[in-house]
């Protein structure tokens, strides 16, 4: 496993350990459920006829109990339940509960997909202001109608509100930040968490992301941007939430935590493609190269690449960086079964790949570069995970499974 290592590996004691994982997506409402469905390679996407596209929704999430009013909870929408479910599972998997840590030592970093206000919170103001001919009476709107607007509707436009509610629910009072809204923000969240741990600003940190809720507005936005639709015929949006618990390696060992993996490196870059619909191939390559350098690895040191998107530029960049002369690294495109899960994507990918046991095989339709037959079993070694934004931001992170050589 040392092939491709440019610098001697740093001792594990200096690195950040992954000690808990939590995720929900269209394939299931726990990491294990997701992995089992993922290995079968079957998508849970369904057609959305009114939009002429497919989408993969999270189903049957347990009801979330919070101390906020139902209307306020509704304002936070599915963001809240996706985030709370994944945080809860990750903390449980790490055997952490609120009594075990000082809330001020618990960092919390997330990439949060776009949120949209609820149109029904606003439309009653319009209805109240209509004239007999169906046109709006602006005088009536500005003098009276506006009072029909639900006062807290702007919260529906703030990406951080569900995050703050999760902080309240789980008592997380440490260093924090919220980024938005695409895959690169999910990588950024993990990076900031690792920094907070590395600098001693947090003793434990949660990091991950949440997708967008599938809604008329999110589908229209993705369609107009070309994330789905005619410019990306195979692509579809997916709902997901995914979080990981990170700790300094020594701390994790000290408290007897199960170590699921460790973080090796990060890379970031920015450049839009010429058509403005995605990041440029050069920027994606640059982020991957920076992550490899940060981890002290050559391309040959990577066993598996988890793609972020359906976009051809990303695959081309990976092909270019890794030269793909042999049957490695294995390239996996999770979006083909879970959809484009935006900010949730990178940690969802990490949760999946770190939870596949050695004798399990990936379905062939997930493999974009395999000369090994219809399906593939592999040892989780070093994994490169991308998070790419259609606005040009690129993030790459490299993790390593606990049992990697």
């Amino acid at each position, binding site marked *: 496993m040392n092939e491709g290592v440019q610098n001697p590996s740093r001792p594990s004691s*200096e*690195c*950040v350990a992954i000690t808990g994982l939590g995720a929900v997506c269209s394939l299931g409402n726990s990491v294990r459920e997701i992995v089992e469905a993922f290995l079968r390679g079957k998508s849970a996407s369904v057609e959305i006829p*009114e939009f002429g596209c497919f989408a993969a929704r999270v189903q049957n999430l347990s009801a979330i109990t919070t101390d906020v009013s139902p209307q306020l909870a509704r304002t936070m929408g599915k963001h809240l339940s996706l985030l709370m479910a994944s945080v809860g599972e990750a903390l449980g998997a790490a055997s952490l509960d609120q009594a075990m840590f000082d*809330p001020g030592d618990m960092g*919390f970093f997330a990439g*949060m997909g*776009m949120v949209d*206000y609820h*149109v029904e919170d*606003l*439309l009653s103001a*319009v*209805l109240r202001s209509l004239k007999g001919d169906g046109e*709006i009476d602006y005088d009536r709107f*500005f*003098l009276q109608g*506006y009072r029909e*607007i639900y*006062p807290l509707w*702007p919260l529906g*436009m*703030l*990406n*951080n509100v569900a*995050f*703050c*509610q999760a*902080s*309240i629910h789980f008592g*997380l*009072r440490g260093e*924090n*930040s*919220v*980024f*938005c*809204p*695409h895959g690169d*923000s999910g990588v*950024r969240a993990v990076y*900031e968490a*690792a*920094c907070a*741990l590395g*600098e001693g*600003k947090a003793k434990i940190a949660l990091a991950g992301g949440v997708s967008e809720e599938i809604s008329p507005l999110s589908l229209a*936005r993705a369609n107009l*941007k070309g994330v789905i639709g005619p410019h990306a015929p195979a692509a579809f949006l997916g709902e997901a939430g995914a979080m990981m618990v990170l700790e300094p390696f020594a701390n994790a060992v000290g408290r007897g935590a199960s170590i699921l993996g460790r973080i*090796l*490196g990060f890379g*970031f*870059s*920015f*450049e*839009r493609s010429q058509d403005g619909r995605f990041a440029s191939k050069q920027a994606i390559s640059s982020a991957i190269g920076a992550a490899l350098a940060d*981890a002290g690895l050559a391309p040959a040191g990577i066993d598996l690449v988890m793609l972020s998107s359906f976009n051809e530029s990303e695959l081309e960049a990976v092909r270019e960086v890794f030269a793909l002369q042999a049957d490695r690294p294995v390239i996996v495109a999770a979006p083909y079964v879970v959809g484009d899960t935006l900010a949730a994507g990178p940690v969802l990918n990490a949760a999946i790949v770190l939870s596949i046991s050695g004798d399990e095989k990936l379905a062939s339709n997930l493999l974009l570069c395999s000369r090994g037959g219809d399906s593939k079993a592999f040892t989780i070694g070093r994994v490169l995970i991308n998070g790419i*934004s259609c606005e*040009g*931001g690129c993030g790459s992170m490299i993790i390593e499974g606990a049992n990697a050589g």
Partner: protein
Amino acid sequence: MSACANKRRRVVVTGYGMITPIGKDSGETFENARNGVSGIDIISSFETKGLPCRIGGQVSDSWLSGFEGKRLQGIEKCSSRGLKFMIAATSEAAAMARLDSIEDRAMIGVSLGYHGENPTVEDLVRLYRHAGGDGWDILGLTKEGAYSFFNFFRRKPDVAASILSILFDCRGAGFTVVSACAAGSQAIGEALGTIRAGKAEVMIAGGCESNLNFMGFVGFVLIRALAEKYSSPDKASRPFDRKRNGFVMSEGAGALVLESLEHAEARNAPIYGEVLGYGSSADAFRITDIHPKGDGAVFAMERALADAGLCAADIDYINAHGTSTLQNDQIETLAIKRVLGERAKLVPVSSNKSMTGHTIAGGGAIEAGLTIMGMNGSIVLPTINYEFPDPKCDLDYVPNEARPLEHAIALSNSFGFGGQNACLCLGKFHK
């Protein structure tokens, strides 16, 4: 992984810029703030009849016209008003820092606090026409232009960071922070960490916002967060004063160019200050209320001090969040007392929002810039409209007049709706 290393890499400020209700750039803003000029007036940018609050801090459109001509060719339609402010502020900061002279653009990143543009009343009317009982006529909606490509673009916060990266040719890490009123300071704090970790040599960091439109404004009206009782608009924003009764919404942007000290020195860049530390926290209390003992604010300030390797005794000045709401100003006072202890009443604390109003994500960056200018000019900016002392707000708020004072280390607070808090520790540059 380099994230664990380089913590003590020094990060300096090589440029700053701003556009605010009291100035088209940092020089004009600082000079007006030094003279206690208020930027608050009756709102003219949208219809306010019938609203209990009709005032705000507007940025003059004429200040943007030069940038619209020069910078926005081809992207005008997808540029929100907030982004236009940020372009103006960044242009000033970039010119000061001579950003164009840096060859390796991959080592320049962008960290922006911003929340995107609000829908318009006209959007609501169009939405109404296309919302039926059977769902949405999205094609009709799109054809009519209710949610055209450009509306979507302006609504997405990250588009602003993306356009900023393109305009200023920044090819390094680019990201958008969305933590409400703390976003501008958090963006600077995250940029600090990015440079310390060696992920960038230079970062454009700051925040922008424009909520002076009907839909952006009315939400705050309805939750009764805005000042409704005032003798005249310029008297409405009165942080720490007993007769304060809400904040005054305004608009603007602030930008800093942050740079590793070695990179700045190697290219002989001007150095105006140093970002010594950064701390963040969550109240984890209630979405709509601040922690009553100010725990979150205390944690953020203490963490910024610890990150800077300083203690409370080292602080010469605090640029307060100071929104002019009953709750914030009282609790921020309490938090400052908890952090500074017996020195609390000896350290000047002032709120720029008394003059600029509250620019939401822009606030932290504007205030960081003004704090650095104050240190370099040996001036502490005032809190204007301080007339009636509040027994629960009993610190030295630098009332009404700027004060000459040599000072070298300051904290700048920003506390966000929902309970996210940020504090920057800023220093006068010493070799």
